[in-house]
């Protein structure tokens, strides 16, 4: 009996890839474990191993083909699997389609974020220019832009700052030779060498303390946490050493350091690897906390973070890394710390979000527009300091507030935003603010439960309707 070789999924978010090379040809015999082909995703080139033994009787997808969907047949062993060839619902395949559908949904959600991203960015810039009223000065026009992924924008920001200042260096796990666990530091080792792009052992507490010490004596370290989940090993140095020493030394010992890496939920990695730390760090005086959404945010804010003389916690998002946005080409492009951005103007309800949830909020705003509700979407960019002025001015106009975050609602960023509004614009509120947030549970692994645990576009739409009493 033959078998069909399917395009494998090689990462949680992969839905398709390029079949870049066949290492076997029709007629070749393969054993389990033999490398038969190479496929490329946006992150890496991977080898595909045979799982069954037999003779390759047919290659169904030519090398060089792009966009080959996960689980589609790429070759046949010993004449192929008859059930599969007949198109019959082969047990594992039908299941895979189901699971694949879920993966596709994650990707689609990501795509939604992306699509909105491009539009949102364009609209944001445009409408800001025509905006009238005292709410917010239009953002500086940085001129021509180019399309870039968030991943590239982060890399460029580090490269620019490292070129400009030789006290800036990057350290962390897999940042140098491996080019970053998520490929964010791609090319930096080549350009700056191992003295300034430093691979560390898995010793977060130790290397973070070391970087804090280096910063206290005047260097400007960028510490990459493979993900922010692992910053918990080092949180003592971030809070007790980096954030407090300036104060305790009566202003003598500053600590110009950036702690960066992916934060928040990733796909299907369960409770210890899927959590938002925004509110943990935002609680602490002596720290700055930034959370970019678009590639322009990423580049402009990371440059500002590196130049800032204070410890900055810089919260990225793994799912955003591969998404593209317009980024100003100007070599001096930088964004201010402490300023939110109004991504979409509206008059009926203020939706405040940060990081990946900005895309969700914009998507919700489009849906709401179809129903005659005109939402204003604020991208916080900076969580500490918080741009209370922009938020409060917006609520004075819309009289309604919805906050969106991936993290838990209890003691979360939404709680703080809402309290600021209550303190500064209580009389302007026409409805109690509503928080859309991750459910109050550790992140479950199972696909169906994970989906339920995270905010969706519909949650935001429903919240906006409830505060505008349209529901």
């Amino acid at each position: 009996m033959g078998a069909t070789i399917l395009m494998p999924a090689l990462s949680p978010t992969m839905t398709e890839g390029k079949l870049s090379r066949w290492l076997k040809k029709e007629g070749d015999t393969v054993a389990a474990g033999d490398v038969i082909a190479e496929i490329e995703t946006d992150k890496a080139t991977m080898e595909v191993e045979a799982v069954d033994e037999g003779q390759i009787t047919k290659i169904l997808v030519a090398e060089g083909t792009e966009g080959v969907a996960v689980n589609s047949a790429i070759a046949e062993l010993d004449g192929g699997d008859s059930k599969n060839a007949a198109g019959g619902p082969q047990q594992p395949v039908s299941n895979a389609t189901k699971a694949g559908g879920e993966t596709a949904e994650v990707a689609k959600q990501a795509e939604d974020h992306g699509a909105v991203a491009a539009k949102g960015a364009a609209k944001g810039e445009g409408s800001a220019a025509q905006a009238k009223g005292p709410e917010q000065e239009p953002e500086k026009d940085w001129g021509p832009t180019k399309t870039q992924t968030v991943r590239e924008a982060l890399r460029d920001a580090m490269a620019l700052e490292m070129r400009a200042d030789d006290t800036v260096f990057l350290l962390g796990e897999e940042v140098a030779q491996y080019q970053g666990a998520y490929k964010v530091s791609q090319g930096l080792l080549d350009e700056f060498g191992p003295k300034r792009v430093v691979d560390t052992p898995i010793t977060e507490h130790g290397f973070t303390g070391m970087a804090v010490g280096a910063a206290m004596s005047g260097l400007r370290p960028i510490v990459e946490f493979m993900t922010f989940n692992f910053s918990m090993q080092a949180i003592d140095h971030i809070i007790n050493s980096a954030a407090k020493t300036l104060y305790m030394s009566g202003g003598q010992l500053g600590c110009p350091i950036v702690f960066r890496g992916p934060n928040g939920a990733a796909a299907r990695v369960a409770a210890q690897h899927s959590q938002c730390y925004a509110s943990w760090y935002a609680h602490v005086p002596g720290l700055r906390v930034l959370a970019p959404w678009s590639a322009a945010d990423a580049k402009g804010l990371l440059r500002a973070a590196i130049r800032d003389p204070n410890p900055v916690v810089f919260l990225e998002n793994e799912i955003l890394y591969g998404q593209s946005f317009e980024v100003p080409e100007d070599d001096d492009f930088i964004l201010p710390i402490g300023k939110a951005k109004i991504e979409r103007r509206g008059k009926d309800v203020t939706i405040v979000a940060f990081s990946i949830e900005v895309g969700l909020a914009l998507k919700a705003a489009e849906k709401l527009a179809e129903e005659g509700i005109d939402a204003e979407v604020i991208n916080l960019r900076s969580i500490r300091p918080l741009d209370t002025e922009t938020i409060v001015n917006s609520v004075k106009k819309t009289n309604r507030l919805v906050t969106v975050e991936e993290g838990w609602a209890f003691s979360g960023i939404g709680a703080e935003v809402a309290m600021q509004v209550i303190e500064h614009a209580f009389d302007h509120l026409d409805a109690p603010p509503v928080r859309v947030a991750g459910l109050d549970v550790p992140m479950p692994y199972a696909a169906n439960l994970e989906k339920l645990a995270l905010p969706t576009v519909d949650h935001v739409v429903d919240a906006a309707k409830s505060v505008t009493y349209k529901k």
Partner: protein
Amino acid sequence: MVQGAKAGTTKRSGRPGPAPSSLKTPPLKNEGLTQEQLLQAYNDMLLIRRFEEKAGQLYGMGLIGGFCHLYIGQEAVVVGMQMCLKPGDQVITSYRDHGHMLATGMESRGVMAELTGREGGYSRGKGGSMHMFSREKGFYGGHGIVGAQVSIGTGLAFSNMYRNDGSVCLTYYGDGAANQGQVFESYNLAALMKLPVIFIIENNKYGMGTSAERASASKDRSKDGTPWGIPGEQVDGMDVQAVKAAGERAVAYCREGNGPYILEMKTYRYRGHSMSDPAKYRTREEVQKMREQHDPIETIRKILLEGGMDETKIKTVDDKVKTIVADAAEFAQTSPEPDEKELWTDILVEAR
């Protein structure tokens, strides 16, 4: 399989002395294990191998999500160590945990169904590949934060000391994890309090894309406990007999109340760190050489045959393992997704 290319531990009698720094080449033969014991070890290792191959396949089909770290190549370590345990002893490890679970006797079905995130999984789908537990089998996880299980394992040993029940705890971690600060804090605690814990470093040469040489200035990890007087040995972790022999010495030492013991297992993972690892940090030849010359399962198979074991007896094991794994995969695909109510259970124990 190249005859005689296998490395093994130097056997020593009595109290452990300094660990051998170079591995010598033992003959292909039974070293203290009967043919029947060897066949059992072969069975247990093969089950892990086939289980992991199937898991890799299901991952490729999108049925398993997130991170999935396979144990292929390292089977001799857990199987050899498990042979030294008795009921009541504990095992704890990292996220590369499927092999450890199967070795402790946890069911293939429950493990595989957890990988697919289904109701029939050990954590009812809520933990996934990296987080499974079985109090009944003495398996305490399944931990995702590199190094965290080392302190927790020390705590399991503390409870053994506290209860004075003669149990030992096997605490497994990688060569990368062996650099975490809490590992050294645990060495000190365990030595100070004479805790019955065996620290087992599974040195598979890489922590993700970083080779052990690039990550640690300590070249002989079995000596990492020296400042605290913790004895240690380097062991050929590709040889189940060498593992068992070293395990017996370590377990005896711990059970007598002498305190902790370190075993550095020289092993190798054939697959990438997790499913999405392009593995550019090592050559294909390096992997191939390990597979061909040091495969723990092939080695035992060969010894069995040379010792006169009937080939059909081995074939029976092969078939049995195949059936178990196929059944587990089937179960993992047909078990339903967890009920939505599960989202809200197990967050806190309700006080009575």
